[in-house]
């Protein structure tokens, strides 16, 4: 696995990405409002890295994941994949690139076509991309079935003959069929039982080592995310609010939202559960149609002051690749705080340490005009 800090080996670069969904009303379908699903997120994922994406439902993590593999077209901003700008490519030009990026979905019951046999499900991507002949494809499917811990005899079975965990393995085999570089896994284990969840997590980790895969791992389970991720991005209402090396996020959360999220996870240890102080956040996540002013978390934050409702905090680098957007950062010593506040780079773009130095050899394709 690559070192998380590696700056030059970015496979995916998300640049000021915005995705708004219009809400239309009336006979003329006029746009009356917009859901700010992802609102100006800049993030990069290094080759071989696992980037965990966490947050509550509605925070935009799935939308971001879908923009990365271009199942959705961003409203503004761009995604640079392996040096190529793909944010606004047309379907036809995008198609060859689809081989390189695949997705694993949450629901193993809904993501497999019930009328197709397992062999067809897994070989279809290869057929579509014109890889191999029938015999070669069959051989490859049988290999893949073995790789994900199923048996080659399952080739002719239908999805309903499998349990949830096995189906999810079929989904993984399908994602691997084209030997992708990037896999976006959207809640790949949350529909599974705990004992099966562990099998799946271990499988995904083994596959990463074997095939040098890069993962974007979207999940709401902070335990699972910590286990698989090299770095973790925390999202709240469409904003990236904290980005940190995995272990550090758990020992030293900077953003109060992260702190609250961590403390809400129940600990399977009765004594510890009694002793620890639990921060229970009031209320629900506000509507992404009219997000709160300033820091979007301020209505639920116990440290919030006046400035929080007025000024949106920039994403600031606190060293060691740990970034957070907060006016009242936690777990930061005075020196770092002074240095950060004195720094002229107090804007989101400049402070984003993940922005990679441009490689002279690689030319980024022409910027595509933004649509708004």
């Amino acid at each position: 696995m690559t070192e998380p800090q590696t700056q030059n080996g970015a496979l995916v670069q998300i640049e000021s990405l915005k995705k708004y969904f219009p809400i239309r009303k009336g006979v003329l379908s006029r746009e009356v409002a917009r859901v700010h699903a992802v609102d100006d997120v800049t993030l990069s994922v290094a080759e071989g890295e696992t980037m965990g994406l966490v947050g509550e439902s509605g925070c935009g993590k799935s939308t971001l994941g879908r923009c990365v593999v271009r199942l959705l077209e961003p409203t503004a901003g761009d995604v640079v994949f392996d040096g190529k700008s793909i944010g606004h490519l047309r379907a036809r030009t995008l198609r060859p690139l689809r081989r390189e990026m695949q997705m694993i979905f949450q629901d193993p019951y809904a993501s497999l076509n019930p009328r197709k046999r397992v062999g067809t499900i897994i070989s279809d991507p290869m057929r579509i991309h014109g890889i191999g002949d029938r015999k070669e494809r069959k051989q490859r499917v049988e290999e893949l079935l073995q790789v994900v811990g199923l048996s080659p005899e399952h080739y002719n079975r239908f999805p309903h003959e499998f349990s949830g965990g096995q189906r999810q393995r079929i989904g993984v085999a399908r994602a691997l069929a084209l030997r992708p570089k990037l896999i976006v896994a959207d809640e790949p284990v949350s529909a599974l039982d705990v004992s099966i969840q562990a099998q799946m997590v271990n499988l995904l980790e083994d596959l990463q080592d074997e095939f040098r895969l890069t993962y974007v791992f979207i999940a709401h389970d902070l335990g699972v995310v910590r286990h698989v991720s090299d770095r973790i991005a925390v999202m709240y209402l469409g904003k990236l609010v904290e980005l940190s090396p995995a272990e550090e996020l758990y020992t030293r959360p900077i953003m109060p939202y992260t702190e609250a999220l961590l403390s809400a996870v129940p600990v399977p240890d009765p004594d510890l559960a009694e002793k620890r102080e639990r921060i229970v956040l009031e209320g629900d996540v506000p509507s992404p149609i009219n997000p709160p002013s300033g820091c979007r978390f301020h209505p639920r934050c116990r440290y919030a002051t006046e400035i929080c409702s007025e000024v949106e905090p920039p994403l600031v680098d606190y060293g060691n690749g740990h970034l957070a957007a907060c006016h009242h950062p936690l777990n930061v010593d005075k020196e770092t705080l002074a240095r950060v506040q004195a720094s002229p780079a107090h804007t989101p773009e400049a402070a984003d340490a993940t922005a990679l130095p441009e490689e002279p050899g690689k030319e980024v394709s022409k910027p595509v005009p933004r649509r708004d």
Partner: protein
Amino acid sequence: MAEKLLEVNGLKVRFTTEDGVVRAVDGVDFELERGKVLGIVGESGSGKSVTAMTLLGLTRDKNTRFEGEVLYRDQDLLKLPESRLREVRGNEIAMIFQDPMTSLNPVYTVGDQIVEAITTHEQASKSEAKRRAVELLRQVGIPNPQVRVDDYPHQFSGGMRQRAMIAMALSCNPDVLIADEPTTALDVTIQAQILELLDRLRADFDSAVILITHDLGVVAEVADDILVMYAGRIVERGGKRQLFYDPQHPYTWGLLGSIPRLDRPKPEKLHSIEGTPPSLINLPEGCKFRPRCPHAFEKCSEEPELKNRVEAPGHLDRCWLSLEDKRHLRESTIAGEARVA
């Protein structure tokens, strides 16, 4: 001693299907005392939900066969005629379901649905029932309840709907509250709110709670006693501390080991229980966990009974391994050290 509210003896539930007889619950015994929270833990298909639904007669059907007894106030709920059971259901024993999105009726207001629960069981006027509905919504933490009582379910968020469900369940001051995965569909932050609410209500209303979940973290936070179920039977039963600090059954070890934990250093690999749970139509011979158990030996071809094998009273398990072996073997299974109580 606390008052015993519910006693389940030798409960078996079988469903006759086209494929064969499904032994969903196969011999479950437990007792429930006032003011206590009993956690039932297990994977899908372990029979935990069927057990809970059977207590309320929700599994009654022409293809269902019951055995054993469910004693509540000296009457056997399994044999109670449907008309009598309706008086108990929702009134003395209430249930909260997993999915707050589908368990409320979308065409009635939240208030109407709570009012209906009250007027079904009590002689209360509509306006009196409505006043109580508002009060209940306030107690479960719905902001601005006088207004929100007239909202439809779709105007509530997931967490609020679950609160409304809890308000409805509490509307008749039930003795027993059965919560079937009440927080599974919710975000962790909302889960924390709901768990805190359940805990507070247990104290305020002095009811007993049966909490069904697959999340050991949740039971560690709120339960007093725990049942671990596998393939329709209890494999281990004991106090919360006994179960977490001195677990006796390899399945319990497996469950504990497979959770990625935030309170411990990250292990190289997660412990996983190999294989999948058995089909409830063709159960394996002997110990039901044997095919997946890494520590199985000859004796496991005979099924061990659920009994007390350790010094602590009230801690029962179904495993043939000697105490010595268990202490030794579980260390490797449960990541980090298992503290001995």
